[in-house]
């Protein structure tokens, strides 16, 4: 398939997952801000912006409403939900001829129904809507896309973004550590609460919850699971030949990232969770760059140069 198409599918997967992840993350954090009577609103909002990676500037005091408006709907902020949806739609438009009409309409209507403004009281509804729409899109992909390269690139993008988003979500656990049941809320936001309870049969503890979201081999939103599935997608794209190692640089990077998590103890990781999560995010960025250079080679634009002699 065309490199340009592959690239767009990869990014479509990433942006859809990012919209979903950002909505989940914000939903929990805004809830926590509201519940915690002693929290410093400005400081908490700023660290949240940092976790999401927003570059927006706020000279004055930052309020929940500002945060909500910026991260949800500000199209000029590349880390907002609106930007993710717009970019997903732009990428879908570029690959319009390889995706199904149903999928295109799913993405296109999501973009055209984006609200212009949300009030704080309605924020939960908005986040639920974003989750629903992304679930719809992924469901249509699941049901209508042939399992070829196009599928692999889409899934690869989605898995990489999921690693990144879950890592960010985990990093926020520190923000409100003293505010009570933050782990429960984080688990809920991932839709992981019930499966967590079934797995551990008990009250959430920070260690267990972190273990579940980081290292569980069966929970689809855990970092390890997403690492495994991106590894699988890469393998499907370029099946390894030869008796040793991996010939594909990206496979090697993912493998290293995975093993450094998988075979360490939870306590070890939790000791400096935020730093560990930064390492993972950096790792994802590196893998993404490697994939770009291998599968989506940039094309130099031809230009005329004057004669030298």
């Amino acid at each position, binding site marked *: 398939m065309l*490199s*340009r198409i*592959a690239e767009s599918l990869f990014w479509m997967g990433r942006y859809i997952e990012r919209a979903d992840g950002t909505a989940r993350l914000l939903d929990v954090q805004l809830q926590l801000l509201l519940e915690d009577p002693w929290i410093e609103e400005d400081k908490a909002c700023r660290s949240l912006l940092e976790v999401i990676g927003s570059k927006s500037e706020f000279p004055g005091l930052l309020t929940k409403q500002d945060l909500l408006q910026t991260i949800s709907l500000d199209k000029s902020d590349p880390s907002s939900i609106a930007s993710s949806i717009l970019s997903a739609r732009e990428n879908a*438009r570029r690959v319009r*001829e390889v995706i199904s009409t149903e999928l295109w309409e799913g993405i296109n209507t999501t973009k055209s129904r984006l609200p212009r403004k949300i009030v704080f009281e309605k924020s939960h509804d908005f986040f639920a809507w974003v989750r629903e729409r992304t679930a719809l899109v992924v469901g249509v992909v699941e049901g209508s896309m042939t399992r070829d390269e196009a599928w692999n690139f889409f899934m690869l993008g989605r898995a990489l973004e999921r690693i990144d988003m879950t890592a960010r979500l985990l990093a926020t656990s520190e923000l409100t550590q003293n505010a009570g049941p933050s782990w429960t809320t984080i688990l809920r936001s991932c839709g992981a609460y019930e499966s967590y309870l079934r797995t551990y049969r008990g009250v959430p503890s920070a260690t267990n919850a972190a273990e579940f979201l980081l290292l569980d081999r069966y929970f689809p939103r855990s970092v390890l699971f997403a690492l495994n599935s991106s590894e699988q997608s890469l393998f499907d794209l370029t099946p390894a030949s030869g008796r040793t190692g991996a010939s594909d640089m990206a496979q090697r990077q993912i493998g290293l990232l995975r093993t450094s998590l998988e075979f360490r103890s939870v306590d070890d990781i939790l000791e400096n969770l935020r730093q560990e999560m930064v390492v993972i995010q950096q790792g994802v960025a590196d893998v993404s760059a490697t994939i770009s250079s291998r599968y989506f080679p940039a*094309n130099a634009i031809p230009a005329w140069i004057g004669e030298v002699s």
Partner: protein
Amino acid sequence: MGDLFAGYPLHAELGLGSDAAFDEMFAPDGSVRKNYQKIHQTLAGISPDELRHRADALADSYLAQGVTFDFAGEERPFPLDTIPRVIDVNEWATLEAGISQRVRVLEMFLDDVYGAQAIVRDGLLPANLLTSSSHFHRQVHGVESANGVRIQVSGIDLVRDEAGEWRVLEDNVRVPSGVSYVVSNRRMMAQTLPEAFQKIRIEPVADYPNKLLSALRASAPGNISDPTVVVLTPGVFNSAYFEHTLLARLMGVELVEGRDLFCTSGKVFMRTTAGPRRVDVIYRRVDDEFLDPLAFRTDSVLGPPGLIAAARQGNVTIANGVGNGIADDKLVYTYVPNMIRYYLGEEPILKNVDTWRLEDPESLELVLDRIHELVIKPVDGSGGKGLVVGPAADAKTLEDLRKRLIKDPRGWIAQPVVNFSTIPTLVGEGIRPRHADFRPFAVNDGKDVWVLPGGLTRVALPEGELVVNSSQGGGSKDTWIIGAKRPKLPEPAIKTNSSVSALVAGQTAKDSGFSEGKFQSQQQQQQQSLDGSDSQC
């Protein structure tokens, strides 16, 4: 007459004479013309509110599908009117023959001017007409596709004059667009007026992508058993991007941008995740000037350098052919009737609109005198660009125009104002007559010119407006060809085992109507392969 058509102005009531526009649904005395009777009946059973409701649902659906155009930075659904244009199959047969004749003669003309130029030597066409056209490209002299076709796709614009006679308004043989709207409009109409589709047998248009793909494959360089066809688009920012994706999707081929292609050693490749892949046929939707920076505009990034050289070596087919613009030059248009006599020895089936060539001093003088009652068009514009309608223009515009005509008579033609036909259209105040033109599409596979049964009817939505253009508030209508007999099935090419054919017959009896068509299409495939062509639908 139903509620729906209340207030529709009729010629007899208004006392209009024979120079009034021809209304396609209502005869001057208010009776409904024969071809529109069934659709008129169907519409009469629908209340105005219901029709509006359906029109809104249609627009919403187009918005969701992304069938839109940019209007002042905002995305608007492509306007499709709920009332179709209806053409009877007998009338259509004439149009079909006329279009096919026109395409054949333009093919011969292009072959001639990029070859021996006999038409110039025989004195039918002044040589400076070619050399002064900005669309005549010497670069492609002698470049020819494997099956000799240059006009794989054409869109000949037609209008009906005051007497109801069809006339050719202009030829489009470069990159005519709009066919995607024909396909998607039909799909929407089936959802919007399902009762009409039950009552009326309408010729389907969904065959177009198959026909186009087989024509493209037929023009591939020789000795390739399974040619790779691609659609070349300028990119997502092009206003016809929707069309490019639709065609690529329905043909099941890659949609490429210039940066996806590269040329080495006279061959064209596309960049894929599995390395370079050879390209044999490019259905390009990029203008000539941007196709190849080595041959044309050096600053173009829309086409790969070296493309023309590859085409010249016969390693790739560019469709439509480069340099076709000379054939739809408006001044060349005035010579087409003579060309038909010269190349084919036939009389033109479809007439041109009367046209004055301004290079002739007498005509120029005449036109300058009557400029306020004529339509003046630039020869290389299309889609109403730069056109001036005399009666509607103010004094200053006309004065400027007069100076420009004197300065550059080669650049313009003049035509009388054709008060072309109107069709009832749903607008703000109800159903009102609006002027509409027509673009049928023809596909040439080298053996036969196939005309899509239907086409794009474009409506000028402002009252009395005679310029039809989607960027100037134009709408569209679906076009229905009705009354066709079910096509006769050709004799089966291969004798089947009798028990099997009995089984097949049993099945067809159970769900007749559909499987017959399938049967037929399979047979058509058979015939194509028997003809020795390697194309398959």
